[in-house]
Every structure is written in C-alpha cells, then in structure tokens.
C-alpha cells in the first residue's frame, strides 16, 4: 500500500509519546509537521490538545441558522403562494411555522456537524500520512512529515526514539 512516505516511531504508551513529541519540538520540528496517531483520544495530554479548534461549534450554529431560515421560508412562502383555507386557521399560523422551522434548524445542525466532520477531520484521506497496524494494539504512533529541509537534529531524535522502541521499554 503506497502511502505518503513518512518517518515515524511507535511508542508503547501516552507518556512516552508525549516525551517523544517534546523532544522533537525541542529539536526544531514544527508542530504542524508532527502527527500523533492513536486508537483512542488522549485529550488530557498536550499532544492531543494542539489540534483543537474552537471553530467547529460555530460552524454548526451557522448551519443551524441557515436551516432555520430555510424552514421559515419554506412554510411561509409555500403556504402564501398556494393559500388554502382550513378550519378557520390563518394561512400561515405562527406556532406551526415555528414547529417546522425548529425541525429544519435541528436537521441542518446535524447535517452541518456531519459535513464539518467529514471535511475537516478529514476523512477519506487514507493514503495521506503515516499509519501502522500496531496502533490497533494500543500503541501510539508519532510521525514527522518528511521534508527536504528537516533539521538533522530532528531526524536524529526520531532515530533515537525508534531504537529505543525496538530495544523495548527502559
């Protein structure tokens, strides 16, 4: 399976992975080039925190507002364009416009969440970046995006971590 060639080491647990990431950063690697791959989220470790972005909930709110506007327009415009009298009720009752608007707001929030997840996670980019099946056993993969101008010190640090991983835990 061809994959974007990358350098990585397998760490046995989160603490070791954190130390590896710290060492790489000290050696001069940039934070955006470091990829940490694990089988569970590690929110309480620093390496799991710098990918956070507060934008996602706001995008969902924006999507929900759009959905609400669509719902409101759907009810008010369509009932006014073909006005049919039923039961003495007004043509566009306020309560009922509210119900449909509410449902479409929620639907839009759900679909926006899904869309934002698919696009920004991102999913469907299987071949981009490193992966190792050992991750499924609970190990953590710490990788570096290989670039031509990677400082040598970074490569040395990575090599040292790989050797240590192969030798076994200290």
């Amino acid at each position, binding site marked *: 399976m061809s994959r974007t060639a990358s350098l990585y080491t397998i760490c046995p647990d989160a603490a070791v992975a954190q130390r590896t990431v710290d060492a790489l950063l000290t050696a001069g690697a940039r934070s955006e080039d470091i990829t940490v791959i694990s089988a569970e989220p590690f929110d309480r470790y620093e390496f799991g925190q710098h990918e956070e972005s507060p934008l996602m909930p706001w995008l969902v709110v924006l999507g929900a507002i759009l959905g609400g506007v669509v719902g409101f327009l759907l009810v008010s415009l369509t009932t006014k364009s073909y006005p*049919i*009298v*039923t*039961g*003495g*009720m007004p043509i566009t009752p306020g309560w009922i416009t509210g119900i449909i608007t509410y449902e479409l707001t929620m639907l839009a929030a759900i679909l926006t969440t899904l869309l934002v997840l698919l696009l920004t996670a991102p999913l469907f980019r299987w071949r981009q970046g490193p992966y190792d099946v050992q991750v499924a056993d609970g190990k953590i993969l710490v990788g570096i995006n290989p670039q031509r101008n990677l400082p040598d010190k970074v490569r040395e640090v990575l090599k040292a971590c790989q050797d240590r991983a192969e030798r076994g835990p200290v």
Partner: protein
Amino acid sequence: MAHRWGMAVDLDRCTGCEACVIACRAENNIPTVGEEQAQKGRAIHWMRVERYYEGEFPDVRVKFQPVLCQQCDNAPCEPVCPTYASYHTNEGLNGQVYNRCIGTRYCANACPYTVRFFNFFNPAWDKPLHLQLNPDVSVRQVGIMEKCTFCVQRIKSAEIRAKEEKRELKDGEPAPACVQTCPPRALVFGDLNDPESEVSRLARSHRGVKLLGELGTQPKVTYLQRNEWNDNNT
C-alpha cells in the same frame, strides 16, 4: 356577494322515513359494501337518520335525527389533512378532493360527528346496476375518504345555469338530493348570506340549535327542536 350554503333540519317534521338516505346514495354513487362489511361497521351512508328511543313500553317515544356533514366553519377535519384533501371552499363548504386523499383517515378521527366514511375496498356494482351511476359524481376508489358535499355538483350546475341565463340564483334553486326528496319537507337548504332565504330565517328561529355546538365547530346545519306541545300527547 359569495354564497354561504347552509341547511336547516326541522326535527318536528322528520318522520324517520329515510328517503333522504336513499336519495343521497342514488345521487352520489355511494357503494353498497355488503353484509359482511356492514357488520364490521364499514357501511357508507353520507346521510344517516339516528333513532333514539325514550321511555318504556307502552310510553315509548322515538326521536329521529338526520345527521349529515355539518360543513363546519371551524372544521376540525380540515387542518389535520396532510394533503389538503379536506379544505374550506370560498362558499363555506367543507370540500373533499378525492384525488388528493392518501387515506390517512385522520379527518375521520377528528370529526366529532363521525360523518366521514372511508372506502376500505374498491367499490363494485354488479351489472346492470352500474348503469344507474350518476355521471356528475366521480366514483371513489379504495383508500379514499368521502362524505356529504351538500351535493356540490348540483350547486355548481345551478350556478353555471344561472350565470348562463344572467340571473341570480333563486332561493332553494340548488337542492341537494336529500332536500329535494324529503316528503315532509323537513330539510331546507339555501344561502345563509341571503337574510331573506328560508334557511336563514330558520337558522334564526328560537327553536334552532347546533349539534354539538359546545365544541366550537360552528356547523352550518341548524336543527329545529321539537315543539313542547308534541310531548304532551301520549
């Protein structure tokens, strides 16, 4: 001014002969569902004559009450239909559009008078009875709700005729089949917007009540109560 069709039922005059029921069936192509289906409660009779017995033998009194679609102004059957099959026409009728009906039967549940009927199967008329079908009224297929329409086909044809002859409709000119047939003339039909029409006069009568009026459906059928003097007879 637009018409607003209404009806008055004089309970004093009703003899319970049920000629209105038969006339309605004949006019509106109402199917006969058969004995088995009728036992299940699926018989269709847009106009029915309810019979209530009071007292013990030999002092029994029978009261007859013809019940048909009340064409309510605040019809509970109208807002609940998801496809606008049940809607309010601008002449005040509760219209039933057979083509729009998908058969949820919500309107039938919402109707407090239970005057709506459902076609549980495709209706069939054995030959040669199919020749008696009224060509002015469509035949409903399975899954469609139907109910009394105040013989809207007669109303429409009377209006068209009046328009062609460039005159107004006379009082009592569009007559639904039941009104036309009733022997003691217990049923009166006409334009409620015309204060001089007979139905408007009867609607203003002191004997007039609305069936289940407390529900707020604002029905357009006025029932004229039986007079006091009737009850003193044995």
